[in-house]
Structures are given as structure tokens and as C-alpha cells.
């Protein structure tokens, strides 16, 4: 028997209307829609869930269910975001059960995984959600007990009237609370009153992960579901000419083989519509293995594609050049570009004059290859197209970005698109580009059945969207006293420039010039854990190391000196970093690593610091080199990301960033020959492995009361520079070209 309840559920939008110091008043506008409240089980002895708001359900037995709105790809927002709600709701974390929210812009105002903004954007918003629900419970209790709200207190999911000694669970009041109007003004706790925020909490999904529960998009299945793959051109710069599927269609389990076009010719491309190939052949069958085998029998004819134009949503046309590109040629082209004048991005003082008058100039050129994302769970999506509706179970970082493109391509209104957000086996930017959802929908529509689209590892590596190739040339000018008088950064890439003209050391040097250039390409690129920054940090932080050595200065002292200048008397008004916070992480890493201490004198160590995604990170790495083997003994990380919500998860992120960064710095590379990637799977794409990971990683956070800033990306870029600097100490050789391990043999 299903118990129904006529309570209105509350679909909410929260808007921060005004913020003031101390207690914060937050205005909320709520949207209500009638929806029967979910009930569990057959009989009424099971708890009855009351939807207090779209984020919070409370059961009669005082179980609390909190919905985590953001897509989860390992950054552990399923733990940290509900912690924000639970804090203000004033419940015991042990009572809380967390569920992934589905894509529902009415219920959840921000479902976005990218740019290290999850906690930062949710900081006030989700605490407001928790506080609102708590206030509704309080009001319900005050009405039931006929006592003024001001005399009631809450803790651990209980409402208490201290004077009379009355105390009841939230569950008792949940049904009444759910009927109440939602409070307009919300007061948030001061940081000093936090009971949950700032305490280490374990990943709430861990019990399911360790049992191998089907959490991922790849694991989704339902009755009648078919399996699909796509065959695509073997090289960038090629396209489909024709194909013969006669033999492939005769293979066991094959249902259909047909061509699909990801976007129409007149598609207006949005920023995240990138896909490697537009016309592909879909193979649909009864199992993954059947489809894999049939693919081998497919006879496709590919041809070199002509130059193409793509119209952007902004009305700007982009030209995609023709040709089969090669990494070797890209490197040569990048050196050519370096010789030509670039586009001036920033100019302070008179750099040309300073360089002309310099007693000494150091110039170094740094390069890095394309990198593949290598998300451990290959790209996939479940889709079922029925009539004019489509239902997805999708690993997708930013569903909001894809919905308009799906509306355009599939010709259905956005209300007809439903997306269940599957846990993602990694993302790192790759799953912000959801073309695979459109592919899956088109395939489902054609075969009129639910399908799961799967990319093989080879598909992912060889037909991906990559971290671009980059180059940066730095020049530093010195006077006769070895004083740094001018700095020049000139950077570009295939097909985008990594340059951040307003970042450190801009602002710290009187004469400064930043230039950029690009080389157009038909190789598709994407965000990749701190795009651009992950290369800039490697280049800039190695260069600063080298010039500090020339100047006879300690590398940390030298950086601090520059930052002090930027703090006291900044050059220019557009510097985008906070010099004090930058200095803070350098000072912390100096202390925690015992930098310069006699006991560490024999260590081969490198230091590096970088600012990105609103946060500051500094790292010291200790390593040893024997032949071409690098052994990393220790990494010490100092991070300033403001208030840390869940120190356990935050540490895990920072440790992972260090390991991932060391791996990519030493081994990461995707190279191309005549448009074809030379690496296609993990047997050729070198990933860092257990025996190459640091023996020890220490993570330290700067303690402050700053509202949270980014965490997932910031500790990734600096480690590249730290590795290069430590390798120099270990080998006496400077490392300018990634991947570094290649130059050890």
C-alpha cells in the first residue's frame, strides 16, 4: 500500500540577495509544485519521507536524506556539499543519507562540475538551504508546542525547549514543516559555531565503491537495452567517404549499422560542443563484445577532409584547417611562431629599452605535448528516445551546457530531456563536452530502443579532445648588479595560447611584456584539470628557479621578494592574484618541508608555487634519479583554499593532484603522425603507476576565515615546476621539454 500525502513539495531556487558581516541575511525565492511525497516500503511501519525542500527530506524515524546537486567525478562533492546543508540544518552527520540529485534546474540551482567552483559557489547557497529547513522545523515545533520559536534550540536533529525540558526529533515535525511557507530571511551560523564543517569526514559513497556497486554510467543497464559504438576516422583531418556494412551486419548479435551526424551543418557551436569527428558510423548490437567484433568487419573508406567553417553561437566563424598534422611539425611551427611578433597582451614600463640596456639576458623556451584525459571510465552514455522525449543516464560534468545543443540537434523542447546524473569515473574536463549524449540519443532514435553508447579506450585516446600543445619563451633582463630589470613572456600553442598575462610575476617587475600567438589546428582540445595553468606553472616556475640561481638567491626567498614588491607597490592595476595569500603558501611550505634546514641539505628538492582557480598552492618535492628511474620520496603541499569544509576529502584531492601532476610531467604525452595518434591505449600511453608514486605526501592548509576558493585544480599545476626543479638538482640538467622522463635516458 502506497501512502500518499498531499503536501506540497518545495522546489527551490535560492538567491543571495544581500550579504553583511556577522550573521548573514539571505533572501530566498521558492517555487512550489505539487508532487506526492515519496513513501518507502509496503506498510506504514516504514518511514514516511517528507520533502521539506528539494534538497532535504526528513523521515518520521528522523532519518535525514540530503540531495547532492553537483555531478560527482571523484572530487567528493557528494560528501562535502551535503555537509554544508547538514551544518546549518543542525543534524548529526551519522543520521544523514546522501543521494545524487538528478538534473533538475528547478530543484537545484547549480549543477556544475568544473573550474574548481563547487564548494565556492555552494558555500552560502547550500548553507542557506540547510538553515531554511531548520527554521521550518523550528516553526512547526513552536506551533505544535505552542511556544515561542525564540525559546527553542536545535542540535543533532532534535528540537529542545530547555525551560520545560521538552525535546523531540525533527522527524516528529517534518510533516508539519513541509506544509509551512518557506522563510524569507535566513541567518547563517558564524564560522566559530561550525560543528561539522572543518571536521574530517569519509567519502559517503565509499561502502558502495568498495563493493563494486553499479554506480557509473558504464554500469547502467535495463531490460531491452542494446549496446552501441561508433567507428570514426583513423586520423584527425580525415572524414568518412563511404562504407560497406554487409559483412559486419551478418556478425552475431548485430542489430543495425548506420551513419550519424553529431551536429547539423548549420549548427551554431557553443563553447562545449567540441567533438573530434562529426560523421561517424554507429554499430548497434546485443553485447559489447558483439559490437567490438562487428566493428572489425566494417569496410569504411576515409578521405582527407577539406578546410571547414564552423559558426559559433557568438556569430563568429571559426576555420578548421585541412591537413594531416604531426607533432614533429607542430614543434617546428611553434619555434617559428616564437620568432614572429606576437599579440601584445600586457606591457608595463619600457621592456624593449630595458632589454636593450641589459647587461645579461637569460632566455629559455619551454614546451609540452598534447595530453589525453585518460579518464578511467571510458566515455559512455545511456539514452532512450521515445516519441519526442529522451531520457539519459549520463556521466556529464555540466548538463546545462549540453541541453541547448541537444534541443537544437534533436528538435525537442528542453522539458523533454531528462538526465539522471551517473557517477563519473573521472572527468578532468573531458566530460564537460557532452557530444556523446547527442550521439547516444540519435542512435537510440534510429534503432527505437534504449541503448548504451560506449567508447573503447582506443576511441577515447585516439579521438579525444586534448590538453593543447604549448610553448612559452621567457626572457629575463639583468643589470650589472644582477638585478632583475625586465621580464618577457611569449606563449602560444596548438591551437590556443596558455598565456595568463596578468598573473605573477606580472605586477612584480617594472618592465614587463606578455605576448601570445596561436597555430590553428584540426586537433580538438578541451579543458584539462587547470587548463593553461598546468603548463604555465611548469614553465614559469622552472624559469624563476633558474634565474634565482643566476642571481645567487634562494628560490623561495626570491619568489617572496617579488611577491613583496607586488604587495607593497604593484606594477599595473590588473594583477589577478593576491600577493599575501601567495606568500602565505610559500612560507608554509618552507616551514613544513624544513626548507634550507641542514638535515635536508643532501636532498634533491624542488619548489614551486602557483595561483589558479582562486586558490594558492606551493609544493616541495624530494626525489632521486637513477638512470631513467625517478623515485619520489616526498611531496609537501601547502594550500590556501580558504575554509576547508572536509579536510579528509580535501587532502585526498591534493594528494591525487600531486601524483597526477608528477605522472603527467614525467610521462604524459599524446603525439601524432599524419593526423593519427601514436598512442592508442595504456600499453602505449604511459601513465604513472604505483611504484612511481611519492612514498609520502604531506598536505597542509593555511588556516583562515576566507570563504572557500577552488581545490580540485590548484594543487595540480605547481607540481610540474617542482618536478623540473628537483630533477635539475638531481641531474645538473635543466628540463625544458615535457615529458621530462624522456630526457633522462
Amino acid at each position, binding site marked *: 500500500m502506497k501512502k500518499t500525502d498531499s503536501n506540497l513539495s518545495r522546489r527551490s531556487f535560492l538567491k543571495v540577495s544581500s550579504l553583511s558581516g556577522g550573521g548573514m541575511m539571505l533572501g530566498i525565492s521558492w517555487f512550489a509544485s505539487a508532487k506526492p511525497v515519496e513513501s518507502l516500503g509496503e506498510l506504514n511501519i516504514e518511514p514516511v519521507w517528507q520533502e521539506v525542500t528539494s534538497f532535504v527530506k526528513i523521515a518520521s524515524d528522523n532519518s535525514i536524506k540530503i540531495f547532492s546537486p553537483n555531478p560527482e567525478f571523484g572530487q567528493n562533492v557528494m560528501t562535502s556539499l551535503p555537509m554544508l546543508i547538514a551544518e546549518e540544518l543542525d543534524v548529526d552527520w551519522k543520521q544523514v543519507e546522501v543521494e545524487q540529485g538528478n538534473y533538475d534546474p528547478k530543484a537545484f540551482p547549480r549543477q556544475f562540475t568544473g573550474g574548481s567552483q563547487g564548494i565556492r559557489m555552494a558555500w552560502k547557497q547550500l548553507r542557506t538551504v540547510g538553515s531554511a529547513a531548520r527554521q521550518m522545523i523550528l516553526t512547526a515545533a513552536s506551533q505544535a508546542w505552542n511556544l515561542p520559536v525564540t525559546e527553542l534550540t536545535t542540535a543533532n536533529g532534535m528540537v529542545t525547549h530547555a525551560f520545560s525540558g521538552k525535546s523531540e526529533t525533527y522527524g516528529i515535525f517534518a510533516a508539519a514543516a513541509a506544509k509551512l511557507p518557506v522563510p524569507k530571511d535566513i541567518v547563517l551560523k558564524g564560522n566559530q559555531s561550525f560543528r561539522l564543517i572543518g571536521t574530517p569526514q569519509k567519502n559517503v559513497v565509499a561502502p558502495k565503491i568498495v563493493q563494486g556497486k553499479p554506480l557509473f554510467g558504464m554500469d547502467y543497464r535495463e531490460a531491452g537495452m542494446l549496446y552501441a559504438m561508433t567507428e570514426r576516422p583513423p586520423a584527425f583531418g580525415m572524414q568518412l567517404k563511404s562504407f560497406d556494412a554487409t559483412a559486419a551486419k551478418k556478425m552475431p548479435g548485430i542489430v543495425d549499422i548506420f551513419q550519424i551526424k553529431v551536429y547539423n551543418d548549420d549548427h551554431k557551436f557553443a563553447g562545449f560542443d567540441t567533438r573530434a569527428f562529426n560523421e561517424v558510423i554507429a554499430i548497434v548490437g546485443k553485447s559489447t*563484445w558483439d559490437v567490438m567484433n562487428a566493428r572489425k568487419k566494417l569496410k569504411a573508406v576515409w578521405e582527407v577532409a577539406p578546410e571547414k567553417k564552423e559558426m559559433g553561437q557568438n556569430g563568429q566563424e571559426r576555420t578548421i584547417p585541412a591537413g594531416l598534422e604531426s607533432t614533429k611539425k607542430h614543434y617546428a611551427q611553434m619555434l617559428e611562431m616564437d620568432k614572429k611578433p606576437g599579440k601584445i597582451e600586457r606591457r608595463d614600463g619600457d621592456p624593449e629599452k630595458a632589454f636593450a640596456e641589459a647587461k645579461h639576458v637569460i632566455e629559455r623556451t619551454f614546451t609540452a605535448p598534447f595530453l589525453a584525459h585518460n579518464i578511467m571510465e571510458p566515455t559512455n552514455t545511456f539514452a532512450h528516445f521515445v516519441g519526442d522525449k529522451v531520457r539519459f543516464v549520463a556521466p556529464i560534468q555540466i548538463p546545462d551546457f549540453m541541453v541547448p545543443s541537444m534541443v537544437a540537434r534533436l528538435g525537442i523542447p528542453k522539458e523533454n530531456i531528462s538526465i539522471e546524473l551517473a557517477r563519473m*569515473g573521472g572527468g*578532468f574536463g573531458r566530460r564537460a563536452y557532452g557530444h556523446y549524449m547527442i550521439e547516444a540519443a540519435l542512435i537510440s532514435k534510429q534503432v527505437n530502443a534504449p541503448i548504451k553508447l560506449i567508447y573503447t579506450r582506443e576511441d577515447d585516446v585516439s579521438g579525444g579532445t586534448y590538453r593543447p600543445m604549448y610553448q612559452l619563451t621567457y626572457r629575463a633582463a639583468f643589470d650589472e648588479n644582477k638585478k632583475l630589470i625586465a621580464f618577457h613572456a611569449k606563449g602560444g600553442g596548438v591551437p590556443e595560447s596558455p598565456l595568463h598575462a596578468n598573473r605573477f610575476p606580472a605586477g612584480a617587475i617594472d618592465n614587463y611584456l606578455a605576448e601570445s600567438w596561436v597555430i590553428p589546428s584540426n586537433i580538438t582540445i578541451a579543458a584539462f584539470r587547470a587548463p593553461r595553468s598546468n603548463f604555465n606553472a611548469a614553465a614559469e616556475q622552472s624559469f624563476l628557479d633558474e634565474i634565482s640561481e643566476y642571481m645567487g638567491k634562494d628560490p623561495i626567498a626570491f619568489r617572496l621578494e617579488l611577491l613583496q614588491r607586488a604587495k607593497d607597490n604593484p606594477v599595473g592595476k590588473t594583477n589577478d592574484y593576491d600577493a599575501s595569500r601567495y606568500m602565505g603558501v610559500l612560507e608554509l611550505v618552507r616551514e613544513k618541508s624544513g626548507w634550507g634546514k641542514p638535515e635536508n641539505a643532501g636532498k634533491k628538492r624542488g619548489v614551486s608555487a602557483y595561483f589558479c582557480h582562486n586558490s594558492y598552492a606551493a609544493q616541495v618535492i624530494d626525489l632521486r634519479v637513477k638512470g631513467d628511474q625517478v623515485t619520489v620520496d616526498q611531496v609537501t603541499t601547502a594550500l590556501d583554499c580558504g575554509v576547508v569544509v572536509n579536510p579528509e576529502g580535501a587532502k585526498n584531492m591534493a594528494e591525487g593532484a600531486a601524483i597526477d601532476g608528477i605522472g603527467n610531467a614525467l610521462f604524459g604525452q599524446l603525439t601524432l603522425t599524419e593526423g593519427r595518434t601514436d598512442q592508442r591505449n595504456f600499453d602505449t600511453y604511459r601513465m604513472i603507476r*604505483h611504484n612511481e608514486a611519492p612514498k*609520502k605526501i604531506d598536505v597542509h592548509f593555511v588556516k583562515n576565515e576566507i570563504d572557500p576558493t577552488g581545490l580540485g585544480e590548484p594543487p595540480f599545476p605547481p607540481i610540474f615546476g617542482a618536478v623540473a626543479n628537483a630533477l635539475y638538482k638531481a641531474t645538473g640538467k635543466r628540463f625544458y621539454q615535457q615529458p621530462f622522463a624522456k630526457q633522462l635516458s
Partner: protein
Amino acid sequence: MIKKYSVKINQKVHQVEADENMPLLWVLRDILGMEGTKYGCGVGSCGACTVHLNGQAVRSCQLPISALAGTEITTIEGLSAKGDHPVQKAWIAEDVAQCGYCQSGQIMSAAALLKNNPNPTEEDIENFMTGNICRCGTYTRIKKAIQLAATK
């Protein structure tokens, strides 16, 4: 060629009809609906698909169904009844997982390691686990978890 096979997985005999070359990985995932065993590369290079074959860690993507007669397979679903194998408990205690996709394979490798070598050195762990990739970078936590499980 499609044939009938009987395979013993987690103490239970299953009858399946499959192509003789179909790897155990896809038998588990697509035919038997046991999706704890993950696909990562299909070429034996990532360890995501690790299961136990007669107690030894093997890559199920490299094991055709026709080669399984008379063997006993254990998958992550059969490692323990309630997710309370010492390795699973240690994984939770050390808060190892990030995305979690590689972790079934890591856990199956670790469990096999400890079965054959109950007190592994750091080097033993590193060497044994080298076949299991984690893009999220949880290696140091994995090592700590294995060391913790070894004390239980």
C-alpha cells in the same frame, strides 16, 4: 562460435551461451549483469578488470570464456558477503577512493597480494600493484590501506 559454458563464479555455477573468445569481463558485465568488474583498457594494461582465478589476480579482459573450465572465479561482488573483507574495510578507513572507478580492480589485486603474501614490504606492494592504474592518483592511500589490512 557461440557455445554453452558453465562457469563457477563466487561459489555459484552459471550457465552461459557466448562466443568462445568472449572475455570473462564482458561475460560478467553484459551477460551476468555483474558490473563491479570494470572495463578500462581491454588489453591487460590497467587492472580495472581484475578478478581472482583460483585465488590469483588475473585480468578478466584477457581471459576468454573457453579457458575457464574447472576454474573458480571470484569477483568484487564475491570478495565478501557484506563488504567487510579486511581490504574493503581498510579502503574505507583510509578513505582511498576518489572517482572510484579503478578501485574494484585495486581491491581485487590487493586481496590477492595479501592472500599470498600476508606481510608485504612496501616494495612488494608497489611491484604487485603496478598493473593497476589510477588516474585520480590514490596510490599512496592504497598503499596505506594495504598495510592496514595486513595488520588485520
